[in-house]
């Protein structure tokens, strides 16, 4: 549940009566207030990023103390590893399908919750139910779905009763299905954030736009296409980019449902990197993979920032 928020720019400061001479000590006051933050960011962000980049160009890091310069060897090793290429493919499928589904479900639910046909209490109840999946930590979501999707679990029971499946399916253990199943679980747990933002966006659309469209004799679908969608466009685009970033960082859900298996069927960039470091103790390769992940994220973040600027 990490978040990326646009920064509010401080309002222009009116220096009502600028002091005649700002002493050196006075100038330093704001930095004093900022110093705990700056120290934390240097220790927790700047130094670690320098460290991971330096690890990625060396061998024998962390576990041994005789590290040697290795040039791009770690990068070559990672980029030619078929498991890494599988991880890139899986991550691409996972984040695109998740984001599109989050958008579609989030928009559909937000529009139903925004309907004037329903009373306030009913809406409030439905809103809480719809937000529920988002309030559980990933560990909980993983165990819920492992229970539901167990070969003798309730999902298989329902599908068997309906005649869809002949016998209990091992949803998370079948290499042909596991990627789609973890994507489905991620869709279930992630749409509410889209929904909340789109709901706020819908409530911000001026009602007279719809009235004018209704006077013109348009039907529901035309109003949706020509009023709702264009009005929500900025929210949709920034939410979609944010969601791509967050989903690409998803580690816990995969780790606790499939661990990246079976046979790397659900291996993601995050699980690949984690395994290199904490299962294989190949911290140098892990660092190279981690730097590649950082670069890919920066590309997405760049689009986000540009999108925010345009608005």
């Amino acid at each position, binding site marked *: 549940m990490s978040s990326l928020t646009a920064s509010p720019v401080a309002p222009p400061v009116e220096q009502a009566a600028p002091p005649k001479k700002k002493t050196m000590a006075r*100038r330093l006051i704001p930095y004093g207030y900022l110093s705990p*933050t700056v120290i*934390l960011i240097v220790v927790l962000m700047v130094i670690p*990023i320098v460290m991971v980049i330096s690890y990625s160009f060396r061998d024998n890091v962390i576990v041994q103390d005789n590290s040697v310069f290795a040039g791009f060897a770690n990068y070559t090793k990672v980029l030619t590893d078929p498991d890494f290429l599988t991880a890139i493919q899986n991550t691409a499928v996972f984040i695109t399908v998740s984001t599109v589904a989050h958008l579609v479900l989030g928009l559909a639910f937000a529009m139903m919750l925004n309907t004037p046909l329903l009373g306030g209490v009913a809406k409030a109840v439905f809103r809480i139910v*719809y937000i529920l999946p988002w309030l559980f930590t990933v560990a909980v979501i993983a165990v819920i779905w492992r229970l539901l999707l167990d070969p003798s679990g309730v999902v298989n029971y329902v599908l068997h009763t309906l005649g869809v499946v002949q016998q209990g399916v091992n949803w998370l253990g079948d290499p042909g299905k596991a990627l789609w199943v973890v994507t489905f679980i991620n869709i279930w747990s992630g749409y509410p954030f889209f929904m909340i*933002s789109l709901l706020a966006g819908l409530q911000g659309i001026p009602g007279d736009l719809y009235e004018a469209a209704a006077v013109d004799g348009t039907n529901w679908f035309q109003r949706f296409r020509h009023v709702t969608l264009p009005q929500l466009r900025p*929210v949709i685009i920034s939410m979609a980019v944010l969601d791509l970033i967050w989903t690409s960082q998803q580690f816990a859900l995969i780790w*606790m449902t499939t661990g990246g298996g079976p046979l790397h069927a659900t291996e993601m960039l995050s699980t690949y990197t984690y395994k290199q470091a904490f299962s294989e103790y190949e911290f140098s390769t*892990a660092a190279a993979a981690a730097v590649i992940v950082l670069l890919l*994220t920066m590309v997405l973040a760049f689009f986000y920032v540009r999108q925010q600027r345009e608005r």
Partner: protein
Amino acid sequence: MPTVRTKRTLAKAGVITGLVLGGLFAGLPVLWMLSTSFKNNGEVFQNPPRLITKGFTLGAYREIFGNGGQLRFFANSYLVALSVTALTLLVALLAAFAFSRFTFPFQKTINAVIVSVQAVPPITLVIPYFGLVVALGLYNTYPGLILTHMVFTLPYAIIMLTAYLNTLPRELDESVKVDGGTSWTALWRILVPISVPGLIAVGVYTFMISWNEYLFALTLTRTDDMRTVPIGIQLLMGQHSYEWNQMMAMSILGSIPVLVLFLLFQKRFIGGLTAGAVKA
């Protein structure tokens, strides 16, 4: 030709059907978790499945509360999340005060760095953190977890609190300065007391992030007495792979703090959360 009235009734029926279907999609898995936590473990996969079984029992909850190891996970989670919340609010408040009430060189640059910190993937950080935390002697300690959780909570808190302070009139703190007070007095005497709603909203979100954090808690602690609730749930999954009722009870208990905080502060919280993303 359907009349306007029948069309309206049809539309309403359609929307209600849609809402109920969506509600089942969102709510049924949660309901099943709740139901399973009250079952005998032998009844979890009974055929046909029942929402409420004959052996309805609080046994799973009794097991969790009777087990010192499980309770330790909760104590650890509260300790870490509350410390992270307190420290984040303090550090973020000071930074937000600087951004909101002063202009100074590199203000925009520092602000941009803080915003971009949010996009850095945790998986990229966890590798150097492991090295760093071991080198600093903080491996498998509370300070190690508290410090690393703050990398997620601090940027958001600073951004939200700056926005909040910007809504408070500057005349308030000017009056303190006229009386000869410093900016420090203005912050604590004037701004903090009227910022309580903003501090609560940010605090709730901070608590939730820390309570739910998984990757750092997994890699930066080693022994069971330092583990937090999300790891505890996972450990239950490994140890007794068949104690489904206990896993569900633990999941419910582990979700209660966040559910309660969310229900109490729903309005403030959603408002604050979407302010950044929606602000057009």
